[in-house]
């Protein structure tokens, strides 16, 4: 699994809730509304209304900033938690499991359970019994990982005749020689 995939997994994590301590904007707006004008000079009234409006806007702006700062702080905290989780996983999971986790959290289907890259190997001297059709299907799928559910498989190489999805279906069946 590549580093960008891990980052994508983090970025697509659900956004944290806003801090509960912030008051709702609508109630603030209501509290800061200017009083109704009395019988007085209309120009003075207009000035006063303008000033009151500016004051309300200033308060609203400060509140928006406070709310955004709160949201940033919450995201930072969530990111810190997530990073800590990932560091923990990285320490204890094998690279293939880590790749699977990242793909799953990113909404991608898992990779086939085959280690065709040395980084994914568990160093062993034991032989594992396997079947050729399933192994090759898994191998090709790991080289051209399936996209999100329903989308056709990616073909990384040029020169492929027909869709990769068709070819994979053919490969799954096995292709009889002419």
């Amino acid at each position, binding site marked *: 699994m590549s580093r960008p995939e891990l980052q994508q997994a983090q970025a697509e994590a659900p956004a944290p809730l806003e801090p509960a301590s912030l008051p709702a904007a609508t109630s603030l707006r209501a509290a800061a509304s200017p009083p109704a004008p009395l019988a007085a000079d209309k120009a003075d009234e207009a000035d006063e209304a303008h000033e009151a409006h500016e004051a309300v806007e200033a308060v609203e702006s400060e509140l928006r900033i406070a709310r955004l700062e709160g949201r940033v702080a919450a995201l930072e905290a969530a990111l810190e938690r997530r990073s800590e989780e990932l560091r923990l996983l990285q320490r204890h999971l094998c690279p293939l499991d880590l790749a699977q986790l990242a793909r799953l959290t990113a909404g991608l289907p898992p990779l086939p359970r*085959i*280690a*065709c*890259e*040395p*980084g994914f*190997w568990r*160093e*062993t*001297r*034991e*032989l*594992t*019994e*396997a*079947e*050729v*059709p399933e*192994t*090759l*299907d898994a*191998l*090709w799928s790991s*080289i*051209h990982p399936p996209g999100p559910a329903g989308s056709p*498989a990616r*073909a*990384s*190489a*040029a*020169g*492929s*005749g027909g869709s*990769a*999805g068709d*070819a*994979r279906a*053919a*490969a*799954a069946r*096995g*292709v*009889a*020689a002419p």
Partner: protein
Amino acid sequence: MSGPRITLVILAWNHWQLTERCLETLAATDLDGAEVVVVDNGSTDETPECLARVPWVRVERLPENAGFVRGNNAGIAAAAPGSDVVLLNNDLEFTQRDWLRRLAACAHSAPDAGVVGCRLALPDGRLLHAGTYMMPDTVWGQQVGALERDVGQHGGIEEVSGIVFACAYIRREVLDAIGGLALDFASYFEDTDYCLRARQAGWKTLLCGEVTLIHDEHGSTRDEHGALMQLFQGSRDIFRRKWRRELAARYRHDLLWQSILNFPTGYAMSSRELLRALDDLGVRTVYRYVYGPRTVFPPVEPESSGDYRLNVIRGRGAPRNPEISVVYGQGDVFARNRGRAKIGFTMLEVDGFPREWVAQANRMDEVWVPSEFNRRGFLESGLRRPIHLVPLGVDVRYFHPGIVSYPNPGGEFVFLALFEWGERKDPGLMLRAFNDEFSAREPVRLLCKVINRDPGVRLKEEIRRLRLRADGGKISYLFNLEFPHYQLGALYRSADAFVSVSRGEGWNMPLMEAMACGLPAIATDWGAHQEFVHAGNAYPLRVRKLVPARAKCPYYDGFRWADPDPEHLRFLLRHVYEQRDEARARGQAAAREMAARWTWEAAARKIIARLEAIKATAAGARSAKAAMCALA
């Protein structure tokens, strides 16, 4: 119709739904005017009424179930005069339109072809039958290829000992010569009996692998297990009395084979193939494990080989004083040979043989090696005994261009390499050359099936040390996977070319298998495989010079092996990748040559020729001794 006149005889007993499916699928094939006779073997369900509504079949109704043999004989008797007959079970399903035309062509492909069967597969796609054989020791018929996944094995025409009569094409001349099925049997063994009778009368039994039918085995007797077993045992007893002596008489030679069978080694794999081929050709082998204490192998070998025939051979009692014994293995176990005539059969990957091997070989009556490369090496190392070439082979029923493939759906050109990680295979040279020659953007990939059983080797570290470029040629690995040998053809067929870069080979079985599958192969131009590799059927890789063989294997000490040229390897990789038509043609030439010259049967025939020569020499010596005694 221009071919022979044919009558299809379908035997049915109850289970109308099976007969109905059989007829429906049959009707969708090309029958070319063949007549269809359904023998209703006394069915008590709706079969008679339903058959009456099928206008294109002729029904022969028997009043009661007369059994498989009499039922089929009734069909044969009802067949159109002078016609060939095809006996068919009603639990068959026809999925191949030209099945009958191909069977008929096979049956008339040679004057002595008499009985023809086809591949039968289970509804789940596994192969059920590709002919039968019977060991006289147990008199229990075995189906060739049974329950293997169907990867296209046995796809050609081959002579077999017998076939099951779920589908049997019988030429009229055979029927005229030996009649119908033997009435000794109610059911079971009548098919093998028929094939043996045909053989006695001079007719061969063939498997037409171009035809595959689906056989829902025992569909019509599936509810009758107890009765079925009773039938089976009864028929087996009759068959044993009738044929056991005849079956045993097919063996013309006896041989003690001391080797290795049930471990995953090259000697074991080739030992298995040679024993099967020798058995087919009438050599009664007795097998004994030659390794054990004071060798690198465990004291005892696993009992089962997973192969009925080999298990029977392994279970045979060893003679006390065998006339001829072959030790097939490393030369330092030749001394364990127990025969009166002793043969040591071995090979090695370097340009000479260790002193201990030569010393033990010099105590043999003769020595066999598979290649001129080894013959030369043995003689130069001081061998003084007669030495003969006995090549190894390839099973072209499982390794041929018609085997199923599982190609890379990305469309990349795939080079395949199979090897055990170690100094001899020089994997670094191959991986670097490929990685340097190609770029990651090119649609080409090297797939390495790698085995590492050496606890001293950390493969990930070894590969990391090669510092392969991320933007270089792409390489994938199948690591420490063990496939059933019969499926390996599908692995080869899923690649476009084969690469075998090694410093030395004692034979190189994977290379031969890949070539038999029609892959263009790049192989080091030095070693035993030069016996079957040349510029007309492969791409020989230039060797710069011979260098001291430095490896963990103690047998190589003091000898030399090849130093393959990395620049030439890069050139060949690129050439095969770009000149695909030429490479394909060379692969096809390789497949033709392997099938024509390098089969296990050919190898077994060489062995038999040697056995006959040894016996003749021994007989000559005995006569000379007798003559001397008489003179004295």
